[in-house]
């Protein structure tokens, strides 16, 4: 999957000096990679976490080399532990694929009327062209079409420029699942040996800070709390970044209060939080959390948040229910916003990168 740059820590860096490039490929194939000094690049070192992903060694090497080429010393290129969408997506179809009902089925999956019409027409056209008639052929056709249209180059997380600490701002409407998302993300990063600092800038909702604190405990990460209830969220954001810098953490993740996108004052507050963070560090990601059970209103949410908070990516939560989250298709297409992460369950590990292929596969799967 994706390669990220984090601080090099512990004894690991002692064992990784100057291995020839060829060995790297061999070790990578074995699933446990140490690093190398690549020709012409000064003392950059790589450490690969063990991954269960069966990746092609040459590809992995290329990716590692690419990252390494830009990596300053003291950093390492890592992947996050493998997590999968799993059974997070439910199939659109009952027993058989019915072409005549495809449009309705897509509407039911929250793709939106226009998108549903367009995709259904396209699938029919393709099916006619290729002479696809069997159930399996039609499923494959739809899967390929969705996958192809959903794949983007920018669906990774912005954790590669090496300018530490990275700062993530997590925004969204009330009840979308921001705090839970942060808990899961923090745990995930922690599992990959990242040092994480959490910032509880949701100073509004009763006990939101405590909720995040519980997640912080589960993710074994420090949390910056507001001095008192109702304190200025921008101040909390500032202190969070400050702590991340002082403790040499890799990443600071800041929780914000839920706000409906049409509340102007609250939306403006996001701008203030942004500015407070930017006094000390660059913001790597503004993640907009969207509830998959939401329908077409998700579009309005994304538009409004993008306008005030420069959203860089979307986290789609609650995909494990009966909701299909079809709106994500329109979000990517119309707003050019990548879906980056998905939440697929209650457990702390039910969280993964968005994979168009797995998503499309799940949608067309036979029950």
């Amino acid at each position, binding site marked *: 999957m994706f390669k990220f740059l984090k601080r090099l820590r512990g004894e690991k860096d002692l064992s990784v000096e100057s291995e020839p490039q060829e060995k790297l490929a061999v070790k990578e194939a074995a699933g446990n990679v140490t690093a190398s000094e690549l020709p012409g690049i000064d003392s950059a070192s790589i450490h690969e976490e063990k991954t269960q992903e069966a990746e092609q060694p040459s590809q992995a090497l290329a990716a590692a080399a690419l990252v390494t080429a830009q990596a300053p010393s003291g950093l390492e290129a890592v992947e996050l532990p493998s997590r999968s969408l799993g059974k997070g997506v439910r199939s659109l179809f009952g027993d058989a694929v019915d072409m005549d009902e495809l449009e*309705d089925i897509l*509407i*039911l*999956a*929250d793709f*939106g*009327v226009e998108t549903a019409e367009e995709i259904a027409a396209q699938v029919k056209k393709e099916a006619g062209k290729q002479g696809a008639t069997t159930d399996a052929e039609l499923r494959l056709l739809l899967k390929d079409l969705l996958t192809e249209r959903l794949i983007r180059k920018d669906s990774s997380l912005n954790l590669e420029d090496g300018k530490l600490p990275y700062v993530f701002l997590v925004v969204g*409407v*009330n*009840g*979308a*699942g921001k*705090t839970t998302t942060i*808990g899961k993300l923090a745990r995930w990063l922690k599992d990959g040996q990242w040092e994480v600092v959490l910032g509880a800038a949701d100073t*509004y*909702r*009763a*006990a*939101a800070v*405590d*909720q995040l*604190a*519980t*997640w912080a405990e589960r993710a074994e990460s420090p949390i910056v709390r507001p001095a008192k209830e109702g304190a200025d969220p921008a101040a909390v954001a500032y202190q969070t970044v400050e702590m991340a810098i002082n403790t040499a953490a890799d990443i600071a993740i800041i929780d914000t209060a839920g706000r*409906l*996108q*049409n*509340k*102007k*004052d609250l939306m403006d507050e996001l701008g203030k939080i942004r500015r407070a963070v930017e006094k000390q560090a660059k913001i790597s990601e503004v993640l907009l959390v969207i*509830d*998959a*059970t*939401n*329908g*077409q*209103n*998700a579009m*309005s949410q994304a538009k409004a948040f993008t306008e005030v908070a420069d959203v860089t990516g979307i986290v789609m939560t*609650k995909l*494990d*229910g*009966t*909701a*299909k989250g079809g*709106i994500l298709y329109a979000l990517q297409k119309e707003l050019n916003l990548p879906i980056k992460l998905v939440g697929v369950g*209650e457990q702390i590990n039910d969280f993964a990168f968005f994979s168009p292929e797995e998503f499309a596969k799940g949608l067309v799967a036979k029950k």
Partner: protein
Amino acid sequence: MFGNLSDRLSDTFKNLRGKGRLSASDIDATLRDIRRALLEADVALEVVKNFIGAIRERALGDEVSKALNPAQQVVQIVNEELTQILGGESQQLRFAKSPPTVIMLAGLQGSGKTTLAGKLAKWLKDQNQTPLLVAADLQRPNAVTQLEVLGERTGVTVFAPEPGNGSGNPIEVAKKAIAHAKKAQFSVVIVDTAGRLGVDEEMMQQAIGIRDAVQPDEILFVVDSMLGQDAVNVAKAFKDGVGVTGVVLTKLDGDSRGGAALSVANVTGAPILFSSTGEGLDAFETFHPDRMAGRILDMGDIVSLIEQAQKTFDEEESRKLAEKIASDSFTLQDFLEQMQQLRKMGNMKGILGMMPGAGKMKQQLEDFDESEIGRTEAIIFSMTPVERNMPKVLNGSRRQRIAKGSGTTVTDVNQLVNRFEQAAKVMKTMSKGGMPNIPGTNPVQMGGAVGGAYIGGKKKDKKKKGSKSGNPAKRAAENQGLDYSGSTETKSGSAFGLGN
């Protein structure tokens, strides 16, 4: 909310307007538009299909072809059917014959159950009930703490024997809570439960366990109004699982088109009892199906608007203001204060969106600048006390000075003064209460008024100002609102004056 749906339907009906006769193809084209509008508003597909079917049947029938104005008749039918789906008359919470009344909350994660529990408790307390909040969400981290904080803020007792965060048995908690409520003589018990997915059988069993333990008088299904097509599945799952006796719509203050309201009401067959419309603990009101239908049809929701205004306006200030208006001493200073209070109600666009005809002034709404209020403030601040209290003295040179002082132009100042004068005039008329009565919220009358709004005049722009519109429908709606609000609550009238 429903704003965009209103717009779409407005456009659709505009095409019908003025037609003396509707052909079957006219009706089909209109129905296609309505179908699309409803789908884009997240009304569930099966509900839309039924809805369209019902309308088509009636629209092709005698009542339309024989009507004097067929287009108006179609509007009327749509309005009636919408109201029907939303549950007809507004419904009341059922109280047990012998206390405590037990209310159980259920819903998806993040639908707003815990916040709602707090609001409901406050609402009940304001009605002289003695509610007890029960923390039976032991799943979500610190849901218990959240409920405790809400209890503290509302002054309502919270029964929370378990700390939550995944430990403890909610069924036991619920059982103990009822015993406790009986012993300590609480009149209403509100049981907050964990959010659960409809497909999570284990959690649904737990909900059933809680239900059986507490024997609730009401099982309120708490629904996020932003819910999409999945609303049908979710509603079915909860109806078939734990059972649903009433629905609460949350986050209605957002800009969601709120189609979920239609879907959920249709699928559960249970009435929508309340809607939750904001962050504050007071942002909670009884749901009015007829008003909502009127809103979808671009009637605006003037009555809700006025109720909202009443809550926000300080009572003492209101009384003073009423006196001032009556005694004709309403000044620019009061105007300013009012505007500042108005802002407390929340986003101006949201408020304006509730007003009749707002759908058609979408562009104006889009253009409405929140900083307008700031500018108005600046202008009034640049006036001397004499000028503020006696706007009549504002001659050319004074206006010029004020414009300079406030960094605006003389035109801006002129506009403000005009607006003020209009608002003052309107309020004066209203405070005399000399308006014809139009009974409460009779859907048929509302429907009729709607028809009038479309088929009636086109003097759009002037209507917006100062409220005494030439449009009979709007005037009726205003009167209706006032009528509803009682005699002294005239200050809300200013919303119209400003709402331009």
